[in-house]
């Protein structure tokens, strides 16, 4: 019972951090809480948010996906290539692109599940190789000239709400639904929590890993498409380093990197924290070098605090 309270508090703690940040930034610059800025902030983190769904699943399994950034870059290029250089219909291009990103995810799944490689190495190899491929396809040059219609995903509005924010919200809802309501979502916890027990209960762990990496690829792909539409130009290095931003959102959100524990709502908070930091520090006119330091310190403190609590509980 007591531990339940602790957990509840812990799950809430990340929201308290968020509220604290919001207060600090608002004091520093009242514009921070201007509804327009909030919407802007949400739009800014939408790509992190979308990509974090798949990353959450991967980390719940106790694995990691370093290929997210490259998938975003790759998707940027091939979707742009399909539409601009091949004149493909927008929807077809999007579907093919998402398919491609899912297949890259399956490749990760293959290496981790069937070959048995540690996820960190497998996904790093994919990261390196596909970065090269994206550069080859694009020749290092940006690809642009999309239709007006395509801009909707990244730049459009429904009422006053930016479309990417709506997509992010839908993705979080879907992610939460998968985790809490579907049987495979429950399997993620089982596999991450006790892989042996999961196997012996008849869960096909191998397939779950394929599934999760494929999902991670898919959401990275979706994030890539939103990014492409938002910046209206496809770059082969667009997603460079994104995986660590996304991992940071997920881990700040309280998902355990050793797997088995974590909630979608925490990841939402983690994503907003990153967004608030990035947005708020610019509003506060903080030197971009100092921003790096703040990011590192916040990550260390948030996760460190969590770990100390866990350690205390274990004793």
């Amino acid at each position, binding site marked *: *019972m007591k*531990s*339940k309270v602790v957990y509840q508090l812990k799950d809430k703690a990340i929201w308290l951090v968020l509220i604290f940040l919001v207060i600090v930034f608002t004091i520093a610059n009242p514009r921070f809480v201007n509804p327009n800025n909030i919407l802007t902030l949400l739009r800014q983190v939408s790509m992190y948010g979308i990509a974090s769904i798949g990353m959450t699943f991967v980390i719940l399994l106790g694995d990691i996906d370093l290929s997210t950034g490259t998938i975003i870059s790759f998707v940027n290029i091939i979707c742009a290539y399909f539409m601009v250089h091949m004149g493909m219909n927008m929807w077809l291009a999007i579907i093919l692109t998402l398919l491609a990103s899912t297949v890259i995810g399956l490749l990760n799944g293959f290496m981790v599940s069937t070959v048995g490689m540690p996820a960190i190495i497998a996904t790093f190899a994919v990261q390196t190789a596909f970065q090269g491929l994206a550069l080859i396809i694009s020749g290092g040059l940006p690809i642009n000239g999309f239709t007006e219609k395509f801009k909707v995903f990244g730049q459009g509005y429904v009422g006053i709400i930016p479309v990417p924010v709506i997509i992010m919200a839908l993705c979080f809802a879907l992610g939460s639904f998968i985790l809490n*309501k*579907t*049987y*495979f979502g*429950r399997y993620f*916890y*089982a596999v991450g*929590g*006790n892989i*042996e*027990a*999961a*196997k*012996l*209960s*008849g*869960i*096909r762990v191998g397939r779950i890993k394929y599934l999760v990496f494929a999902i991670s690829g898919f959401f990275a792909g979706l994030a890539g498409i939103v990014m492409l539409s938002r910046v209206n130009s496809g770059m082969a290095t667009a997603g460079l380093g994104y995986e660590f931003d996304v991992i940071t959102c997920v881990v700040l959100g309280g998902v355990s990197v050793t797997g*088995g*524990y974590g909630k979608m709502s925490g990841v939402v908070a983690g994503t907003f924290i990153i967004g608030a930091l990035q947005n708020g520090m610019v509003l506060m006119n903080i030197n971009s070098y100092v921003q790096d330091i703040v990011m590192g310190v916040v990550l260390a403190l948030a996760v460190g605090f969590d770990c100390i609590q866990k350690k205390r509980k274990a*004793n």
Partner: protein
Amino acid sequence: MSEEYVLQLEHIRKEYPGVVALKDVTLELRKGEILALIGENGAGKSTLIKCCSGAVIPTSGKIIVNGKEYDSMTPQLAAENGIAIIYQEFNNVKELSAAENLFLGRPIKKGIVVDKKAMEREAAKAFEQLRIKINPKTLMKDLTVGYQQMVEIAKAIQQDAKILIMDEPSAPLTSAEVESMFRVVERLRKEGISIIYISHRLEEIYRLSDRILVLRDGEYVKTLQTSESHVQELIKLMVGRELTETYPPRGDCIDKSQVVLEVKDLTGNGDENISLKVHKGEILGLGGLVGAGRTELAEMIFGAAKRQSGQMFINGKEVNPKTPREAIDTGIALVPEDRKRHGAMLGISIKDNINMPIYEKNSTLSVINSKKEVATAEKYRENMAIKTPSLHQLMKNLSGGNQQKVILGRWLAANSELIIFDEPTRGIDVGAKYEIYKIMNDLVEKEGKAILMISSEMEELMGMSDRIVVLSEGKMTGELAKEEFNQEVIMEFASEARTSIEEEKTV
């Protein structure tokens, strides 16, 4: 012919590097019977039944379920064939609820959506049947070990299995829980379900089973009709010789004037106010049921767990080890219960395993004195008669008994005065067991060490100890001198705290 049997395991053989866990074992299970599977620790019971689920892939042999022949199983195949297994080790997911654990791997679902309400309803029903009060929504990690086991049992029953295999299901349960489990098991038998029941508690075997299959040292020994068998016969079959021979004799070597270890009112890690003394040349047995808190006590003495209060003396001097390192330096050693997890370092060599605690001592400026290192390892290989072609052999290629000897060698090399043995012969074959007993005898007799021995095997406890202290639920419930040794009395002490708590509950 095969109509009669729902499950047949034929000529199963399972080899691990350095160990043959099963040699040509055959088992036949009839419809609607309870077949008891008995054998000493490490006889291969768990390994055998794991072959039925695919958790272990047999090296050779056949598995025939309902007339269908397989070389090996998978968890899915087992489920399809109506086999449900309760494993000896816990197989649950701590972050999921009791209800979800109950339906792990086969949730009630509509399409892809799990129906939590329905699962919770069904779970409540299942728990009701077992007469256990568990809220299906409770997370597994918030349940006590006993309740976790009840969930495991409910899970197996819930599967509507045709064949139910239970590996020491009663071990962590209280007697009332065991009772309600028995009622369910008997009802299932009436419904025509076939059951394999593994237990070390012979009274349970006699109460439940129709036939008994005895394994020894990975080999099939005999199958008996329960009604026609006797306890003495069973024990003989299990152990392979008369019990009296099992324990090598030991002269009187206790030096009452020298107390090597004394603990006073030790509290913490789940134990309360434990006070005991171990003399030079003495083996003090520590008895109790599984979960009595003996391992916890050992961990506290060894500095591996935090103690809240109480004092500890080594040779009359107060010590306060906060880490194993400090304990080792004051002359304490621990041969842990879970050899694979806590003792053996499987990926490194025998030599390194033996030298691990004394490397710092045998180094100058942190450079290891390799001559000493080899000499030490060589010495204990000889002393312990460790069977290995080379000291560079990796630990994982040794048999369980030899691994245990290496760990023993480690602590002898460390020149410890007090050696704590936690289940020293668990998972060790009969031959090696005898050797380990001899080593223990030599330790107290010739080298004047003191030994604290934790054992769940009643015979071993009574056969090896000079005195026995019994724990129950983290409290000391009794102490017996050699002349007072008596199985019934020990069992009574061992279940004392439990019964008193149960009485309180019922009042």
